[in-house]
């Protein structure tokens, strides 16, 4: 006699099953959050309309969604590179800050009359990309080095390093790099160093193009290049990788460098594209939301872009929701994290086979056979 839920030996891993589990979990998270809205006396429909209308149905709002999506996508890509290599790096908040600081510093040096002086943008852009990548990458590679050489836990060390990076930036903007004025921030970066705006009438900047290019490159690296294959093998089974002649320690440090570099680019995109100056608190949790984006995209580099757009858009919509439906914007943190937790929980469901035929005779035998297969 078939049971209603039968345990499988391995989870159903067809794209349909994975897609269904992800979307189902997201809808469940939206349902739970809808109850929270009603605590605020707001109708869930109104609140969700406010949450999704502005970022995705207005041009101006969509521009802001792209602005928020760029760093999220880059950090998510960094997460994918490191986690698929078996390096559980959580220090993207720090890489973001370090990359932003490096980019801001270089940009200030190219102000008229400063140390370097104005550079043509086509020379400045590759330079700043290189430096932000190297700065963020080195910051993360240090943790990789500790892990590879000394065996320290990268989970905790990278979490701690976030606070160190944030305090370094706090020191710089309240001391050596501080602009005259009451706020701890640098002067406005020279107009020539800003990333170009790409959609007329919006604030959308070229950072999203950098994120798109990075997504393509990460996909190439992991799917098509021998180095990416070695990274993934290292992530799957370190002993097998070593047995196959892969220098595991070196691959870990390299994965950390790439991941941190992408985190650094995220900081660069934010400071040159959106903020146009360095200030305290520039990261504001983006390093963790970026990890969540990667998880929801199932560590797939191509799925990162739409997921980052969804999450970036939700953070834009959250502000609109706070204005219109007077629901605090922090509620989107709940929705965003709940979705991932439920995705994890729904993955457990993929271990079960659902037998609707238990309910009896009305199911035609042909359908029952197709379902049970």
């Amino acid at each position: 006699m078939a049971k209603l839920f039968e345990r499988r030996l391995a989870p159903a891993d067809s794209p349909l099953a994975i897609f269904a589990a992800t979307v189902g979990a997201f809808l469940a998270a939206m349902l739970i959050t809808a109850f929270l809205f009603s605590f605020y006396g707001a109708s869930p429909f109104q609140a969700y309309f406010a949450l999704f209308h502005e970022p995705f149905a207005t041009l101006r709002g969509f521009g802001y969604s792209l602005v928020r999506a760029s760093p999220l996508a880059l950090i998510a890509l960094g997460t994918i590179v490191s986690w698929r290599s078996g390096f559980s790096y959580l220090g993207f908040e720090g890489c973001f800050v370090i990359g932003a600081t490096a980019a801001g510093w270089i940009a200030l040096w190219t102000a008229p009359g400063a140390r370097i002086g104005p550079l043509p943008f086509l020379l400045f852009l590759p330079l700043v990309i290189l430096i932000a990548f190297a700065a963020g990458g080195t910051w993360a590679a240090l943790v990789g080095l500790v892990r590879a050489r000394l065996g320290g836990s990268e989970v905790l060390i990278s979490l701690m390093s976030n606070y160190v990076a944030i305090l370094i930036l706090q020191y710089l903007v309240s001391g050596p790099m501080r602009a005259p004025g009451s706020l701890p921030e640098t002067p406005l970066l020279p107009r020539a160093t800003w990333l170009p705006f790409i959609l007329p009438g919006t604030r959308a900047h070229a950072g999203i193009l950098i994120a798109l290019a990075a997504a393509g490159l990460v996909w190439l690296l992991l799917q098509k290049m021998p180095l990416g294959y070695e990274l993934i093998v290292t992530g799957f089974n370190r002993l097998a990788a070593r047995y196959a002649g892969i220098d595991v320690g070196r691959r870990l440090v390299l994965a950390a460098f790439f991941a941190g570099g992408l985190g650094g680019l995220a900081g660069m995109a934010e400071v040159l594209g959106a903020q146009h100056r360095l200030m305290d608190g520039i990261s504001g949790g983006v390093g963790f939301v970026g990890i969540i984006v990667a998880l929801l995209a199932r560590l797939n580099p191509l799925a990162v872009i739409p997921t980052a757009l969804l999450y970036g858009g939700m953070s834009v919509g959250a502000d609109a929701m706070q204005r219109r439906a007077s629901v605090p914007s922090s509620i989107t943190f709940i929705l965003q994290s709940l979705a991932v937790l439920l995705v994890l929980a729904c993955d457990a469901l993929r271990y079960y086979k659902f037998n609707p035929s238990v309910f009896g005779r009305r199911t035609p035998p042909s359908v029952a056979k197709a379902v049970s297969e």
Partner: protein
Amino acid sequence: MNGAQHMGSAFVVTWLSASLRLAGPVLLAALGETFAEQSGVLNVGIEGTMLLGALASFLVSYYTGMIWVSLLVAVLVGIGANAFLAWMYVTVRASQVVAGLVFNVLALGVASTIYRRALGNSAVPESIAMFHPLHVPVISDLPLIGPALFGQTILFYLTLLLAFVAHFILFRTNFGLALRASGENPAAADSAGISVYRMRYVGTLISGAAAGMAGGYLVLAQVGLFRESIVSGQGFIALGIVIFGRWNPLKAALAAMVFGACDALQLSLQIFGTGIPPQLLLALPYVVTILAISGLFGGNAVQPAALMSPYVKD
């Protein structure tokens, strides 16, 4: 006694007493985390649990003024939140790092939403009833060590007592043995008749209770108000202290004192005005924790062997 000598002893007194004061909450959280890790669960979610505990105790103390009740509610909130986490870790068998980390974001969202709901957006810090430092006649007035050792709040002494209790339970009782077996070799523990799932649930719930209480400790004995940044990595530092203390409650107590001393150094130096930028001093406890757990001083071999690996009963 001349001026310089007086300055020196005043510095040592404030430094020592602040060291112990700041060590309290992280030690409490680390003691609970030791149980979770000895059972095989790395509970990264204690950072968020501390935040929820801090909010719960703040709200209860704000509305009722009863500090012991506030502390109890913080413990219960910690247990409740970690029942969900334990389900994720043990039953769903999700990656422990992922589930704990995402839970921290969830806790931040929940805490700031509830706080705004309860007190509105008025940025005026509300003050609440708090635990006060004890004052024992004679010994609290001893020079140097008097105010530091005998002038703490009752929560500090309770935490110290709990360190000894935790050590006894872990290393001198059958329950402690079963818990450690579940983290060291779950398959062997299982065949010896120990329910590994139950041990891991219990370990995670203990860490939740301690982290919730540590959040209450922060609010009720140190800060006196709630803000979203009140925990700011102290849960993560507690994780570091567990490693630095080699998964042993008494060594964790010493490790927490070292952390407290670094944290307090920044406070004392700021009071006495040195040229060192405050941000660099603030980074000191994090840097020291990184160095302590980097493996430079060995110790990774003592880690429970099955830490972070979900157990599947065949």
